[in-house]
């Protein structure tokens, strides 16, 4: 071990809260996000407990409504959107492109503080009595009828939005301007491409959410009727504005996952990603086309039929680049030299679950079927397959993959594989029955339901408890590895990529010498052999 690394650079607690080191900020984010995932998860657990029986037994209707709202808000804005970008991305992006930090280190820290502030305000709203509008905050319910702490919670989301914008801005500038000599665009790892696409969405979509929330709060606080039909306002305008942000936002919640999966598959199949350029441009294509499909959330809202036709059509178009990616990943496995370490298990699970989620997205994009399925559990299952089965799975995969780099310790491989498999089963048991529920017509956001739906709900609740345990496992063994894990070498997986060329954990300014790049990414023909057993 040579000298100090970023963890041992300064031991004082204060040095963490004033740090501008992207690696430390990534860790700060990580701790914060675990906390929010836990809160969102507790809410999910309570939801599933309540739904185990058709009647109202554990919580009252009002509490239930607050639970799923808080679950949605926390999971989306305070966990999944920042998940991969702000932890893994923050840590890895500068390392991957051979930079010493992000372009604006202090802005990076500021964005964490904004995030914490936004999160605290939202939590405050929850402890004050919660918010019961659903994460979609539809007007006029949210503005004129709800008696809950809408304005406070919305303020929290608003603040967190600025944190998102700053992060996106930081990534864009970093990727443009701080690449190591020789690192041209087509030599960038695909993780960078997908985070770049993500950042574009963060920067261009989030401000629209911000202004929408301002309008909502103004209407709620001052009783002015922007969305109030009684003075000629249009409640649907809110939905248009909201989904103009929120549909692109769902790609914020999947592109980084796809980016991680690229790295994992290339590393464990020991091959360059098949059709590198297609995959790279597919990310940008998703980001761009993603801005044109928001109306598919409004097929039954009363928007014009023509608009619905156009939005449905565009939703199919935006699926094409995703299809390209899935096929390219599969093709990458061909003639690979595949190893099944835990990160690879997560990557394979991602491909399967994301595809199921994506294909059911096509069901919903299909107009006539959406008329039936919208606002049923079919939608709930669709997005959990992508967001939990896809993104959270990729997050866990990436976390294991870069764990040695981040902490300098190896995690216990046996336990990691066991947890990956358990998560996969728990997940499917939780959410597959929800497709059946949706196909049978059970509406979402229901606190009580008709008895004929019970059997599938029981399965789902059972699955959720397996899933909860499975998600707890990594917390334990990863914490264990921090103290007792084997020391990690610089490049345990024999991976390509600049981040593996510096020590684990990296020194304060990432590299002892400025790295220079002179070849293509994923050059596994010349990569070192994996060093662990």
């Amino acid at each position, binding site marked *: 071990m040579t000298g100090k690394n970023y963890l041992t650079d300064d031991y004082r607690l204060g040095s963490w809260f004033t740090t501008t080191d992207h690696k430390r900020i990534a860790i700060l984010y990580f701790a914060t996000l675990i906390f929010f995932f836990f809160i969102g998860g507790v809410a999910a657990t309570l939801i599933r407990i309540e739904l185990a029986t058709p009647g109202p037994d554990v919580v009252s209707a009002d509490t239930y409504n607050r639970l799923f709202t808080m679950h949605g808000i926390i999971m989306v804005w305070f966990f999944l959107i920042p998940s991969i970008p702000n932890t893994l991305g923050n840590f890895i992006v500068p390392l991957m492109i051979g930079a010493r930090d992000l372009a604006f280190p202090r802005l990076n820290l500021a964005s964490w503080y904004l995030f914490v502030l936004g999160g605290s305000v939202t939590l405050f709203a929850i402890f004050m009595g919660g918010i019961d509008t659903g994460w979609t905050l539809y007007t006029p319910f949210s503005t004129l*009828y709800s008696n809950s702490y809408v304005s406070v919670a919305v303020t929290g989301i608003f603040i967190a939005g600025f944190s998102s914008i700053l992060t996106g801005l930081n990534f864009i500038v970093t990727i443009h301007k701080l690449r190591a000599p020789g690192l041209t665009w087509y030599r960038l790892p695909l993780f960078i491409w997908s985070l770049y696409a993500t950042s574009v969405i963060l920067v261009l979509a989030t401000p629209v959410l911000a202004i929408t929330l301002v309008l909502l709060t103004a209407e709620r606080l001052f009783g002015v009727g922007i969305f109030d039909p009684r003075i000629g306002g249009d409640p649907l305008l809110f939905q248009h504005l909201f989904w103009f942000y929120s549909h692109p936002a769902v790609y914020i919640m999947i592109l980084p996952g796809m980016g991680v999966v690229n790295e994992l598959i290339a590393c464990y*199949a020991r091959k360059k990603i098949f059709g590198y350029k297609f995959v790279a441009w597919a990310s940008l294509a998703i980001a761009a086309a993603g801005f044109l499909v928001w109306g598919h959330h409004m097929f039954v809202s009363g928007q014009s039929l023509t608009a619905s*036709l156009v939005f449905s059509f565009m939703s199919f178009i935006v699926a*094409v680049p995703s299809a390209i990616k899935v096929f390219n990943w*599969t093709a990458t496995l061909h003639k690979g030299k*595949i190893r099944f370490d835990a990160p690879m298990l997560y990557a394979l699970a991602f491909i399967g679950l994301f*595809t199921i989620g994506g294909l059911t997205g096509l069901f919903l994009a299909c107009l*006539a079927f959406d008329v039936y399925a919208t606002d049923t559990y079919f939608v709930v299952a669709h997005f959990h397959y992508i967001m939990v089965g896809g993104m959270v799975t990729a997050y866990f995969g990436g976390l294991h993959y870069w764990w040695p780099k981040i902490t300098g310790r190896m995690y216990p491989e046996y336990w990691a594989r066991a947890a990956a498999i358990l998560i996969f089963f728990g997940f499917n048991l939780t959410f597959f029955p929800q497709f059946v529920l949706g196909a049978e017509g059970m*509406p979402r*956001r229901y606190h009580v339901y008709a008895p004929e739906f019970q059997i599938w709900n029981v399965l789902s609740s059972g699955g959720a408890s397996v899933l909860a345990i499975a998600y707890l496992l990594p917390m334990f063994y990863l914490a264990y590895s921090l103290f007792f894990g084997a020391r990690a070498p610089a490049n345990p997986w024999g991976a390509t990529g600049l981040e593996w060329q510096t020590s684990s954990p990296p020194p304060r300014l990432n590299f002892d010498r400025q790295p220079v790049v002179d070849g293509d990414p994923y050059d596994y023909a010349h990569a070192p052999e994996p060093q662990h057993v």
Partner: protein
Amino acid sequence: MWRQWIPFWHEGVSPYGGDVDLLFRGLLVASTLVLGLLLFLILLFCIRYRAGNDVDRENHEAKSWHWEIGWTAASLVAFLGLFAWGAAIFLKIYQTPADDLSVFVVAQQWMWKVQHPGGQAEINALHMPINRPVNLVMASQDVIHSFFIPALRLKHDVVPGRYQSIEIEAMRPGHYHLFCAEYCGTDHARMLGEVVAMRPADYAAWLAQQAPSSSLAQQGSALFRQLGCSGCHEGSSSIHAPRLEGLYGKPVPLSDGSTVIADDKYLRDSILLPRSQVAAGYQPVMPSFEGRIDEAQLLQLVAYIKSLATVKP
């Protein structure tokens, strides 16, 4: 029809119900095929090319664009097909209703109020004859609700501030769930109802048995007097206001030079927001009734004005 040969096939309850089910199965089959192919390939590669296995990995960097172009094009074609299929049925579901039998639905937290043209009113239930398209005119008193009958494969949001007309038809008698599918507050999950589809004879009997004191239009007529509309709009009024006989369905020239058709929405706006569209040749003196009448009364007034459509002024 050939559909009967599909395993587990049930004929739909609504005219397009079967089409939606068929679409669903089509989607299922297509995705199962794609997913199956993918999983098969993944499994195959994982086993054959696992690290310990000594197989031929020559040429593994060689690649050709043909594959990518191939599967991109194949997905695109499949997608366009699915789009067109879904869109065709969609247009059938939301076709403009025939103005035959109109039933009015008012949604409010947390119940469905139904009014029949004959004046029969019911709550959380909707009786209708089978094999006859019914034009549902829906309005919301407060927030957005959604009218959802799974058995008929039909759903539409009910947005405050506007009328929503959809056509609904059942082909088999029965009791079907009615759900509120748009989150609307505390008792969203209890905003349930029942659609009772009956044979025409039973339906007629049911209507008769409800024995309304007066029809919807008659109730509207009474309101028309009670609210003072008649003071301006009838007979020898000193105020210069348009006669409403024969108005419904006709084009109305407006003071800004444009013309609109006097449909339900126009009548509604004329009563709630009279100044948004002023009839040509009149002063904008009509007061707004916003906040003074609820959606149910509004429907009665509209029904009354509609009933005047055939009366000669």
